[in-house]
């Protein structure tokens, strides 16, 4: 019984990181209809920024802010300078996948070129440990879980109660209609990428915090579970992504304990494939929209 | 009395709780251009999709040329002689005009892997015959484009003509036309009409879904009217114009 409870604890942490990441990912997809396969590498970039900040003497708070900021700037820049121009040029869905993968190659290998293929850790003081009902958490991990909760609440508040949030939902649902209602969709999209980029960067820092060491490929490897969580909940639906994150986070940690640690990532792979093949609109969408079926 | 070429009985289908088609039955007689009209949401497109095999009905049957075909895949229906066109442009955009036609030629042995690998000599003669037939159709329809032009570059009207010629290349017995005049300019409408009448006189049967009632009046006899998933009435346009039920449906729908 003990090992299950322990993995439940690990699952909560993974789910927290996944939740921050996949909500960001799904927001990007929702407003631009592009599967941004460079997302994981922007996370890695944020992790490196956090590393540099902590090496220069900063603490966890500074590292998080710097990471979130770098994620926001990088994501905004990617969308403005690369993705939107390609979409305007008429690049269609699969073409955009090639574009995002190309960006991913450039970022991931660019980071490797700069930092070499070695592993890094954030320079932070050793955290203290706490035990809750059979689960063990370090203070840093508790911060991660707390961050995830705060982020989810903020996203929910933004989407439900603010004018910007409503504009974002309208743009995601039907950009043409939103524009004709007077919504400055370009501005909304910019903000969406800044916000989701901040989430991406935060997720990258928390990921670096949680693994003993990270390298240029760490974020990219995390991308599939992120996409799995987003797709499971219905791409473009932030609340679905949160639930997807919990499902994937818990199930992968549990299966790592029960089956084998080597196959941990396979859980996310299998969930993603099964969802795409059987119900591509995800669990929480009612109807398969034209968006999901072959265009 | 020869049996009708197409016989539709008690078709029904629903989408997420909405009865799009309920208990639809009608016949298409050989050698006719049968019209299928009705206000938006009447279920005409669904009926067309079911008859052409793109949707499976929840219940009911479709009999074509003596074969029970409901639920079969579209390609099987096409091979039996039931060919449909689409409302939106559906040309093979990266193929040339003549390649678009050649694809439609039925029974090409060169489409089988074995014969393709064996070499040109296996399918050369069939290909030459298809090319000749395709060129004949291009001449007949006077499509104002070169045969080597890429189909995606054609104008909307040229694409319509191309798709009509392509459908004929498939040697259909029954042609299902899905709003063939949608978005077509009046001069071209008249040209297409005369082509369709000529084809009918040569023995080709057609079932046409169309919104332009003028076109329907000039071409179709009989005309079937649908509303809210059911067949309201059928007859000539003149008869239907005086049918109160039909008038009400159009005003309400």
């Amino acid at each position: 019984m003990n090992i299950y409870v322990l993995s439940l604890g690990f699952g909560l942490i993974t789910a927290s990181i996944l939740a921050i990441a996949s909500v960001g990912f799904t927001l990007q997809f929702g407003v631009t209809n592009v599967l941004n396969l460079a997302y994981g590498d922007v996370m890695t970039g944020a992790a490196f920024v956090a590393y540099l900040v902590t090496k220069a003497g900063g603490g966890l708070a500074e590292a998080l802010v710097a990471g979130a900021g770098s994620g926001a700037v990088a994501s905004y820049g990617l969308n403005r300078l690369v993705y939107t121009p390609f979409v305007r040029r008429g690049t269609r869905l699969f073409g955009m996948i090639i574009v995002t993968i190309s960006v991913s190659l450039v970022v991931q290998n660019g980071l490797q070129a700069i930092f070499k293929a070695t592993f890094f850790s954030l320079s932070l003081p050793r955290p203290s440990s706490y035990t809750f009902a059979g689960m063990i958490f370090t203070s840093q991990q508790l911060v991660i879980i707390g961050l995830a909760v705060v982020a989810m609440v903020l996203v929910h508040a933004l989407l439900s109660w603010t004018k910007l949030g409503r504009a974002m939902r309208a743009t995601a649902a039907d950009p043409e209609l939103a524009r004709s209602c007077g919504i400055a969709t370009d501005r909304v999209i910019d903000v969406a990428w800044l916000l989701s980029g901040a989430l991406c960067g935060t997720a990258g820092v928390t990921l670096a915090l949680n693994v003993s060491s990270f390298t240029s490929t760490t974020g990219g490897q995390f991308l599939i579970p992120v996409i799995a969580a987003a797709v499971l909940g219905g791409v473009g639906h932030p609340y679905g992504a949160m639930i997807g994150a919990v499902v994937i986070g818990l199930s992968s940690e549990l299966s790592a304990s029960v089956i084998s640690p080597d196959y941990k990532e396979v859980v996310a792979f299998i969930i993603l494939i099964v969802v795409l093949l059987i119900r591509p609109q995800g669990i929480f969408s009612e109807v398969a929209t034209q968006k999901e079926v072959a265009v | 009395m020869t049996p009708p070429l197409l016989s539709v009985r008690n078709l029904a289908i629903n989408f997420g709780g909405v009865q799009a088609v309920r208990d639809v039955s009608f016949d298409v007689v050989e050698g006719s251009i049968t019209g299928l009209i009705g206000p938006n949401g009447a279920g005409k497109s669904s009926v067309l999709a079911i008859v052409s095999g793109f949707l499976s009905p929840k219940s009911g049957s479709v009999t074509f040329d003596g074969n029970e075909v409901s639920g079969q895949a579209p390609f099987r229906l096409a091979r039996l002689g039931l060919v449909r066109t689409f409302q939106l442009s559906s040309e093979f955009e990266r193929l040339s005009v003549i390649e678009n036609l050649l694809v439609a030629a039925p029974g090409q042995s060169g489409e089988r892997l074995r014969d393709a690998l064996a070499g040109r000599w296996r399918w050369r003669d069939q290909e030459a015959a298809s090319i000749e037939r395709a060129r004949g159709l291009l001449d007949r329809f006077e499509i104002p484009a070169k045969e080597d032009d890429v189909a995606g570059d054609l104008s909307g009207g040229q694409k319509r003509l191309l798709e009509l010629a392509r459908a004929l290349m498939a040697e259909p017995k029954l042609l299902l036309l899905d709003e063939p005049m949608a978005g077509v300019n009046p001069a071209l409408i008249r040209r297409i009409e005369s082509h369709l009448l000529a084809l009918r006189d040569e023995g080709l049967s057609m079932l046409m879904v169309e919104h332009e009632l003028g076109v329907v009046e000039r071409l179709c006899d009989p005309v079937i009217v649908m509303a809210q998933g059911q067949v309201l009435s059928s007859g000539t346009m003149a008869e239907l114009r005086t049918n109160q039920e039909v008038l009400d449906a159009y005003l309400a729908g």
Partner: protein
Amino acid sequence: MSSSMQFYVSNLLVYLGVDVMACLGLNLQFGVAGLINFAFIVFQAAGAYTAAVLTLGPSTAMGGFQSYIIGAHLPFPLPFLAAAVVGGALSLLVGLVALRRLRSDYQAMVMLVISLIATTVVTNATGLFNGSNGLALIPQPLKSTLGLSPVGYQWAYVVITFVCTILVWVVVRRITGSPLGRALRAVRDNDAAAAALGKNVTQLRLVAFVTGGAIAGLSGAVLAQFITAWSPGSWLFPESFVYFAAIIVGGSGNNLGAIVGAALVPVAFLEATRYIPQFGYPGLVDALQWVVVGLLTLTVMWFRPRGVFPERPQRFARPPGHGTETKT
């Protein structure tokens, strides 16, 4: 030519042949038939592993330092043939399950994940193909029969590769130049219209997928028996992307484009630069190569998305007596 120069050139030529074969196969699947096979490299790997386990002999021999299934000493060309068959059979299986009417980027994701799953399974189930260490000391075809010097054998392998490449070229040319190729392109452009005209879309797609997979398998066998080793590191997902980049740069849907793309991207960029002096720290050049591949792909997608040699429709000769007058 000095001996080391001969090794360099013959190496390049074998890699060129392998990559040309792979690109022709992928072009058939993606360029002609429109199938987004982001798991392409898995089928090349399947062929490579097949050739390896059919030539290595029983795994218990040589002290059993590597473990793998089967294990036989089949003579050339049987391992190559088997590799093609395995590539094709695996493609049939994957094609039946994973090719769906999905939007194209979702379809890409499905195949990408299949590639990742394959890597994970082979890496962890060490009894299959010796896990992450992979297989080594793979015997080479006709090595003892020919009894040549090392340099001589290199050139012999170039000939073997050349013959296989020509074979693949003939197969692909015959398909694309025939009504089958035309039907595949039609299905790619509008599968509903193709079905409405009597084409069995599923069957046509599987024909393209399986043929492309068999070609991939053959290319894997040729490569694996050349470098005499094969491990998961040789077939990670980015390798599939390299082939996609190659046919996009060269011209998707055009066989000549696939050949040119193979020469430019996997060969010129990745193999030829292997031999330039390693500047900076070890691994820097490799990382920069990938950065260049990414940038090159973006550049081509921006300026010339249809590639160096875009797809061209087939032209048909007119019998004498017909002019080429434009119709009005």
